[in-house]
């Protein structure tokens, strides 16, 4: 099956293990780094909503701000979002290795 939904420079071999670091929760992301979304586990209703805002698996995003106790600020598909810590705990991400 051809996977559209993909905005990644170059092709990815799906059989091979995903490049990049450990799978972590978005809540533990470090500002100034790029990550890739692994999965969203918020239940059907919330998943649909997040997808509509551009949060889909394999999407690459940038963490612009994250401070202890407060919401995170991330850039997905050219749009900046504030995302609460509760929600951020339900999104699994993987850090991208420096590829550029």
């Amino acid at each position, binding site marked *: 099956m051809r996977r559209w939904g993909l905005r990644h420079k170059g092709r990815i071999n799906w059989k091979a293990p995903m490049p990049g670091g450990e799978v972590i929760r978005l809540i533990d992301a470090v500002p100034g780094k790029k990550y890739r979304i692994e999965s969203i586990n918020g239940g059907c209703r919330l998943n*649909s909503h997040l997808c509509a805002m551009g949060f889909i698996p394999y999407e690459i995003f940038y963490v612009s701000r994250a401070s202890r106790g407060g919401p995170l600020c991330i850039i997905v598909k050219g749009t*900046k979002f*504030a995302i609460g810590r509760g929600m951020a705990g339900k999104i699994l991400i993987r850090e991208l290795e420096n590829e550029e």
Partner: protein
Amino acid sequence: MKSKITIALAGNPNSGKTTVFNNLTGLRQHVGNYPGVTVEKKTGVVEYKGYRINVVDLPGIYSLTAYSMEEIVARNFIIDEKPDVVVDIIDSSNLERNLYLATQLIELDSPLVLVLNMADIAKKSGKKIDIDLLSELLGAPIVETVGCKGLGSKEVLGSVIEEVNSKKKKKIEIKYGEEVENEINRITAIFKREKIPPLKFDTKWIIVKLLEQDNEIINVLKETLGSKYQKIEKEITGSINHITSILRNTPEVIIAEARYGFINGALMESYREVDTGRLDISEKVDRILTNRVLGIPIFALIMWLMFQFVFTVGKYPMNWIDIGFGKLSEIITSNMAEGLISSLLVDGIIGGVGGVIVFTPNIMLLFLSIAVLEDSGYMARAAFVMDRIMHKIGLHGKSFIPLVIGFGCTVPAYMGSRILENKGDRLLTMHINTFMSCGARLPVYILFAGAFFPAIAGNVIFSIYIIGVIMAVVMAKVLRSTRFKGMSDPFVMELPPYRVPTLKGVLIHTWERTWMYVKKAGTVILAISILMWIAFTFPMIGNNYSTDYHGQIDEIEQSYQSGTITQQYYKEQIAAVEGKMAGERLAYSAAGRIGRFAEPVFKLLGFDWKMTVAAISGIAAKEVIVSTMGTLYSIEEADGQSEPLKTVLNKNYHPLVGYNFMLFTLLYFPCLTAMVVFRKEAGTKEMFFQMGYTLFLAWMVSFLVFQIGRLFI
């Protein structure tokens, strides 16, 4: 040829949809609510080439799922009302995300016109779009506009009319990938086998929605299909499990990916982008405005400026309105015989309606500020900055704004709560807003603090404000963990790029809200003011005064005419007697009787019947408490600074009772106007809940303070 058509404007939040709407319709707009929900419905009419086009502005949404009330409303409008054309407004500099909504409109197979708004910004930042190709790939005509400069409106209307008249229907189908398509086919077969009657939706669309577990559609099917639905449900669950196990993601995510796939497929050929600089500017501004250290002080400063703007600038027009109504009262009193009708006109109607109109400048300036903050993009940042603190007490970051406004006046604060999208957040913010001491309560505090604690009046008043804030925090926690449990959305919010707000947009926004306030509050308040006037006037005392006041007045008149007393003394004496008469009239009226009747309940708080009547009159408006207190103690024209009233209060009550009365005034629901607005914003049930729980809380707190305090005095 049809000459009357309806079009619906759809689009993401921050896509400039409202600006396009304003450009299309100008000032011929009508604002209402969708039936049964608090989602705003804006409509307007425009005439073009012999067509009368009815434009409906749907709420700003990201998709047509059933995530929020807005999405359900928008979807139902498109499905049920079947507008002749749906116009999807798209932010050209964010095509991919914005086209997601378009794919769902394509799925619904509604006649579609795509508007690429803010085309100038996209071009400036080096984005190249092959309009013709994209239009062909998406199966819908595309028009470019620049909303903030008013460009492209004619072209939009032209495309709409072309679309209405075009016969050819080219349905674009979105493929969801092999696995999902297989399941869709399998369930379509089951639909046929079970002889499901044709519904108002397309079968494939329904199945996609069922795979996405869309609650609204599930409920509709449950209702219409009855027992047959159970069979379908079982099959759907099977499909969901199958898809999830193979693709390791739930169907709604897979389907969303497929939609983005379709978009990327279309964009791959028709769109080229060179890196954008726009976000970088916003990013730089954000570095300061949402800074960890500076963010909150900057927000506080902006709030302070807004508060000053709303209440300091608003003071002048408020004064003019006040003087105007005063003059009107004077004209009526001087031209009409003193009697019931003039009293009804002056005290009832002008007093009541004037009390509503007088807030208009505040409301207008408040909505002006909110419109500027929203349109510029700062509002989202404010929520971001404040979320950390507000989250701890169970509120949304944006709740802070209405709460600050509440210190000025609760009426605009309730209306300002509209900036909260989630119903639970909005109601919670409204329910605790009462405890932010509004300006009308200040005269009461000044009077009582001045009467009982002259040396430390400032500190005492401050303590009342602080207790209010503490109460708000406590009640927010309590309500969030009981009545509004789980009614909060996870916090995900777009931080749109900063923009300069357009004058037209800001003005239209301000005007709409203000007019809505005047119209809605005004009509109900008129009726209630008359009722309040009746309660404070009837039954009339007639000649049942305790002493012969008329005789006393005659005596004073005689001594004045015979020259034994000075004019000054004469006036004072007359005022004293008339004051006593007014006090007795009030005590005799229904309100006075209620006060006496309710006295046993308030005795437990240390209040006598006079305080009780004053508290009741405070329902009309809290500052009325002061003048009622004055009337009851026979002091004419009393205000918060009135020395005689302070003396008499100090003589009659213990300081503990005085402080307790201030607490009571702080805690019970603000005023009638506020309650009417509350009902309009949140419904009758919520209004009664607000009245009930604040009264109960006020009583409980005052009870405890008085009973415990009594042990120490």
